[in-house]
């Protein structure tokens, strides 16, 4: 990956995180840490990998994105707005009465939201249906499904993985936001997922692991996965819950935080410092 592109994506990611923080603080609810852990992946998909056209959200041959961990939708909304699907102003209505941007995503083609989600464990199955339909009609189109790690405790995920490998859906990419946390604590304490890679492989997927915050390795991983024909892909993206906010990264912030005005200012400052550091790097 070119240095220039990496810096561009990193800059976008910082701006998206700031928007997400503003959205959640204005709504006074939402899942900050879980949204932050997958920002880089969604930015990478929408600003580099996926073939989409914000001016033609209904373009049938487009790539699809299914956010199975629907509670992380502020990140998706902020990315879609920045990508030009709708006005950034709309973000400030997130979770408000009458808003298009619901607490968990409604299927809204005009806004670029490809699938509904919110009830966990359904995204991979929906993605399978899309991938099956696209495979016959538009073989170039791919489906990217982002799932949470805790979400994999839902049995329907594994039903869907069996479907994916049985129909050899090599146009399907299941990306796991492996931040290691779920509502009540660590995934490995509550109900262990490991060995996760081996589980995906046993279910017939081609599985790779990457750091979910490092754009060059994300890029390299997707490129490597794309070469594997005949298998659906699983990419375990190791991420940090609340990435970008030291307090959250260190586990000193509750899962559903209500943030005071002061806290928000401090957190925005921290993100601004990151963007200042990026400007330094660019020079």
């Amino acid at each position: 990956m070119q240095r220039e592109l990496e810096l561009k994506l990193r800059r976008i990611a910082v701006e998206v995180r700031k928007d997400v923080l503003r959205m959640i603080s204005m709504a006074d609810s939402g899942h900050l840490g879980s949204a932050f852990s997958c920002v880089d992946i969604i930015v990478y998909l929408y600003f580099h990998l996926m073939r989409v056209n914000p001016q033609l959200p209904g373009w049938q041959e487009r790539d699809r994105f299914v956010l199975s961990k629907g509670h992380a939708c502020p990140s998706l909304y902020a990315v879609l707005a920045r990508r030009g699907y709708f006005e950034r102003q709309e973000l400030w209505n997130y979770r408000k009465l009458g808003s298009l941007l619901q607490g968990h995503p409604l299927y809204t083609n005009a806004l670029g939201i490809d699938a509904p989600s919110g009830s966990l464990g359904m995204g991979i199955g929906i993605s399978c249906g899309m991938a099956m339909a696209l495979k016959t009609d538009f073989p170039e189109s791919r489906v990217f499904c982002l799932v949470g790690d805790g979400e994999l405790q839902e049995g329907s995920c594994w039903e869907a993985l069996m479907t994916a490998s049985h129909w050899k859906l090599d146009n399907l990419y299941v990306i796991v936001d492996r931040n290691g946390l779920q509502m009540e604590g660590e995934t490995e304490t509550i109900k262990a997922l490991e060995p996760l890679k081996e589980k995906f492989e046993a279910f017939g997927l081609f599985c790779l692991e990457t750091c979910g915050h490092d754009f060059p390795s994300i890029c390299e991983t997707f490129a490597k996965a794309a070469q594997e024909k005949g298998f659906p892909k699983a990419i375990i993206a190791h991420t940090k819950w609340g990435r970008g906010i030291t307090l959250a990264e260190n586990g000193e912030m509750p899962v559903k935080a209500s943030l005071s005005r002061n806290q928000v200012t401090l957190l925005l400052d921290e993100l601004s410092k990151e963007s200042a550091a990026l400007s330094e790097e660019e020079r």
Partner: protein
Amino acid sequence: MTMEKRSTREALGDGLTELGRLNENIIVIDADVASSTYVKAFADEFPDRYYNVGIAEQNMVEVASGMALAGKKPYAVAFSSFLIGRAYDQIRCCVAMPNLDVKLVATHAGITVGEDGSTHQMLEDLALMRVLPNMNIFVPADYWSARNMIVSSYKNDKPLYIRLGRPEVPLFYSPWDEFHIGGGRIIREGSDVSIVACGIMLFEALRAADILARQGIEAEIIDCYSVKPLPEELIQSSVRRTGCCVVAEEHNGMGGLCGAVAESLGINYPVPLRFVAVKDRFGESGTPAELQEYYSLKYREIVGAVAQVWTTRRR
């Protein structure tokens, strides 16, 4: 009505195959019950548009949702207990909420499944589907109504649940009869009592009407095949003439057709009302005929219910 008998589930295979020839976007997704749901006919003729996702109803509904999102017209087929019961959250979040063009077709609904017993005898499906916004519900009574509802269903792009049964029932309708979302049909005119029925209970209502006629009570029978939306005007205009009503269905008396009619009449035009339905119980093993007797789903109960409402009818 002829003496020939065919099950409504038989209409599924024939209807879907006919649909498959009409529209190449029709996809059938099945949870490993192709033989008993007669979907095999479609699978044989259109192998590229048929997916057996295995014993995985939740996944089936998710896949159907994804197909609809990608522009297809999927029909998800399974037994009622497992399609409606097992995959309820998927139906709610992946079909009804996004208001997608997914057709849920379930066979083996009701007590007349017979020997398989309570797990397989779905008596709560209409209640579960009725309370979902955007959902539409069809309960055909015979082979031709089932087949015609299936064939015409592709013309709309709404979520639709079609409830089919296992046993063979008389052929009542003709191949040319048409059925609409929100529709109902007066299949026998009368001025003394309105009997609103769906599915197999329609035949019991017809038999009850003959007996009642001999006593001088002329029953009006409405085939209320569209349980949701309910043909409220049709029911109300009949009840305004008769002044009393009996509802009959092969379902728990709560939340299904009985509930729907009671809600509608209770608000708009209250009249004496009785239900002939399963009384908040689960099913059990037995032959379909035995079970229909044991669970009081026969013409006799309809006659009894009519006698009760007729004596106190609203004038």
